[in-house]
């Protein structure tokens, strides 16, 4: 009763000392959800170029990256252990003398990224293809990393 008189805010009843922090934390959660989450998508921003999507099915891993304007011979892909390394570069060549730029948003430069794969892979059968600026790398899983069906007797 003594405490009630001291902490008598009109809007919020005094439930426990950190009620305000709870409300703040819930509001911050909602804010980040709205900024970063979209329903059904676990979105982690990439820190190193390029952004990749790693997916898997029973037999393979698939790594996809958006690399428009990168020629296939300017890319190097290698697999060592459980690490996939992608290196490449792109030049936006100047087209001629006497040109005036109105806008330049596309970057030129180089990149190198190592991606750790979640399971052992068969490094001898990795395939990569580049279609319309999307690089797709198919990495077969090692035999012992494939799921094994267990029958019940």
């Amino acid at each position, binding site marked *: 009763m003594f405490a009630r008189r001291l902490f008598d805010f009109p809007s919020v009843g005094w439930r426990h000392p950190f009620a305000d922090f709870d409300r703040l934390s819930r509001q911050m959660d909602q804010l980040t959800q709205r900024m970063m989450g979209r329903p059904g998508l676990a979105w982690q921003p990439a820190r190193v170029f390029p952004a990749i999507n790693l997916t898997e099915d029973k037999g393979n891993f698939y790594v996809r990256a958006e690399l428009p304007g990168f020629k296939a011979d300017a890319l190097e892909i290698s697999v060592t252990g459980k690490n996939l390394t992608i290196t490449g570069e792109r030049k936006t060549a100047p087209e001629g003398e006497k040109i*005036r730029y109105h806008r330049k948003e596309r970057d030129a430069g*180089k990149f190198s990224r190592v991606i750790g794969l979640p399971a052992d892979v068969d490094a001898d059968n990795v395939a990569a293809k580049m279609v319309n600026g999307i690089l797709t790398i198919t990495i077969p899983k090692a035999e012992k990393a494939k799921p094994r069906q267990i029958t019940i007797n």
Partner: protein
Amino acid sequence: MTDLKELQVKNKQEVAGPAEQTRPGIVFTPEVDIFEDERQITLLADMPGVAPEDITIDLNDSVLSLTGEVKPFKDDDEKNVIVEFEIGRYARQFTLSEAIDQSKIEAKLDDGVLRLTLPKAEKAMPRQIAVTAGYPPYKVS
């Protein structure tokens, strides 16, 4: 030979326009380079994942609209492990200030980069104006 700089991750920009899209899905703005020389304006747009038959280029009233459709990349029985970029259509509009010869516009799609060549109309090409020296109207004696 200068060293190429490291490329940085750029998050794809979503279209934040006043008009709502009629179809569900995310729409991104492709990055473009626009430059011109004396005879034409060239536009290069990064649209990875768009096939040549899925691009629409419209020029109405000096507003140039680019739209690119993207087919989903993965099969349905693949599960996501890491997702760092999203998949969506590309759309961007530009207002052209110069007169363009519309019958001679060329478009080429290579490796996900659209190259649009817009030749300037004849009357918009810069004409050299020769400056002749003017003689003073009086003689200095």
